[in-house]
C-alpha cells in the first residue's frame, strides 16, 4: 500500500487526542513503510544516532529525488515515514521550500527533531536538504 501524503498525515494525527493513539499510528506507518534491502544498509548509507541507526539511499530520476530510508527502531521508522511523505519523489526545489519544522510542530512531534534526540531523524532531514541543495545548485 502507498503511504499517506504529508497533508493526510497532518489530518490523521489531528484526529487523535491521546499520545497512545498517535504513537500507534506512527508504529503502523513504520510497519507499512517499505523496508530497505539489508544489502543496502552499508556504512556509507548509515546515519548514526546514539539511540538508533538510520540508513538512507537516494536516487535521482528525471528532476525528482527518491529516497529509501530505514531504521532499526519501529517508532523511528514511523517518524521516517513522515519525513518521506514530505520529501520523497519531490524536486530539489520543493524539498528546500518545505518547512519541516512547521510540519513537525503541526504534528506535535517537534521534540523528535530536537538535537537531544539521538535517533538520527534530525540528521536525516539535514542530509536530505543537503542532497537537494547539491542537486539544485
Amino acid at each position: 500500500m502507498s503511504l499517506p501524503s504529508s497533508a493526510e498525515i497532518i489530518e490523521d494525527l489531528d484526529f487523535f487526542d491521546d499520545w497512545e493513539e498517535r504513537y500507534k499510528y506512527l508504529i503502523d506507518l513504520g510497519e507499512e513503510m517499505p523496508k530497505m534491502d539489508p544489502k543496502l544498509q552499508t556504512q556509507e548509507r548509515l546515519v548514526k544516532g546514539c539511540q538508533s541507526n538510520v540508513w538512507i539511499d537516494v536516487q535521482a530520476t528525471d528532476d525528482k529525488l527518491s529516497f529509501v530510508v530505514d531504521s532499526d527502531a519501529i517508532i523511528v521508522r514511523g517518524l521516517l515515514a513522515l519525513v518521506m511523505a514530505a520529501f520523497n519523489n519531490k524536486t530539489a526545489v520543493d524539498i528546500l521550500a518545505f518547512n519541516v519544522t512547521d510540519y513537525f510542530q503541526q504534528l506535535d512531534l517537534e521534540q523528535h527533531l530536537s538535537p537531544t534526540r539521538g535517533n538520527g531523524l534530525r540528521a536525516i532531514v539535514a542530509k536530505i536538504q543537503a542532497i537537494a541543495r547539491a542537486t539544485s545548485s
Partner: protein
Amino acid sequence: MAFDVLEIRKEFPILQRSVHNKSLVYLDNAATTQKPQAVIDAMVDYYSNYNSNVHRGAHQLADQATRSYEAARDTVAEFINANSRSEVIWSAGTTESINIVACGLAKLLKPSDQVLVTQMEHHANLVTWQQACKASGATLVIAPINDAGELMIEQYAQLINSHTRLASLPHASNALGTINPIKSLIKTIRDHSNNYALVMIDGAQSIAHCDVDVQDLDCDFYAFSSHKFYGPTGLGVLWGKEALLQDWPVWQTGGEMISHVSYQDAQWNTLPYRLEAGTPNICGAIGFAAAINWFTQLDTVAVLAHESKLLALATEMAEDFSGLQIIGSAKQKVPVLSFVMDRGHPADIGFILDRQGIAIRTGHHCAEPLMERLKVPGTARASFALYNTCDEVEQLFIGLKKVREMLA
C-alpha cells in the same frame, strides 16, 4: 538515624515537576543525578554574593571565593580519605580526569609496555588509553568479561605481566552495573606486574553508591564526576598519589599552573595547581562540596540499603516480566537495570516510557565495543538514586507493560 525517602524527595525541586502531564519518574541517574536544594542554594549564594576569580584578586570577594573553593578541595580530600589535599585535582569530569593521566602516560610509555583495560569500559576509559598506546607504540590489552557481565578474574590476572605499565578499570560499569572487586584486583595487578603497573580506577559510577577510601584501595589514580553524585555538571576530580602527581607530565599550560615564566621557558607550580590550567570551575567546586556535605549528613548505610532494595525489586520484577531480558546479572551491582525486550528496539522502549513520564536512557551507553561483546544493539537502562521509591520501580513496569502492548 534512619532514611525517609519521601522526606528526601522534598529536597529536590525537580522531582516535583511533571512530564507529559505525568509525575516525573526519573530513572536516568547513572547519566546524571538531580540536585538537592542545598547544592542549588550554595551555587546561587556564590554567584549572588561572592563571585570572584580565585587566588589572585586583591580584594574581599576574591578572598571569600578562594576560601570556599579551597575548602571544597578539603571536603573532597576528606570524603575519599586522600592522604593530602594536594592529591585532589579539579577537572571538568571523569573523562577529563582520565585524559590527564592518559596524556601524561603517553609520554612515559615505551613500545614494549602494555596498558590493560576491560571489555566493560565506556569510551572515556577506552579511547583515552587506545590513543595513548597509538601515540607511544605500546599495546592495549583487553580483559574479557563473562556473559553475566563480570570480569573473568583468572584471565585478568594472566594478562598482567612485567610489561603492564598501567591497568585501568571501572569501579562499577555504567552499562551493566557490575561492581568490580577492585581492592583485590589492585593487589593482583601489583603482584603480577612486580609493582611496575600503575592502577587507575574509573569511579564515575561508584562514587554515589560505594564507599571510596583511596588509601585503603591503594590505587594510584581515582577519577569521578560531581554531577553523578548530586553535584553540578562540569566538575570532576582526579585523585592521584602525591609522589606520582608531582612529576606527572603537565597536560595543559597557562593560568595558575605555572610558578615562573619567561618568554622562552616556564616552571610549573606545585600540586595541586600544576595540573589545573586556566580559571577553574569555582562555582562547580563549591556546589560539589555542598553535595558531599549534604550526602554525608545522611545515614549512608541506610541510603545504600535503600538503593539495594530498589535494585532487588526491579530485578525481581524484570525476571517475572515475559519478553524482557536483563543485560548484566553480576552478583555485585550498583543500582542499574539494563535490559532488552523481544519486541521493541531500546529507542522504542525509551519513547513510549517518556510519554508516560518515565525517564530512562537507551542506546549503547557510550560503550559500543561492550554492546558488540554482548551481541545487543544497545539496551534500555533504568538507574536508581537514593530518592527513587519502590512505587517508581512499579511504575516502570506498568510503563513497560504498555510498551509490550503497543509493540505487540
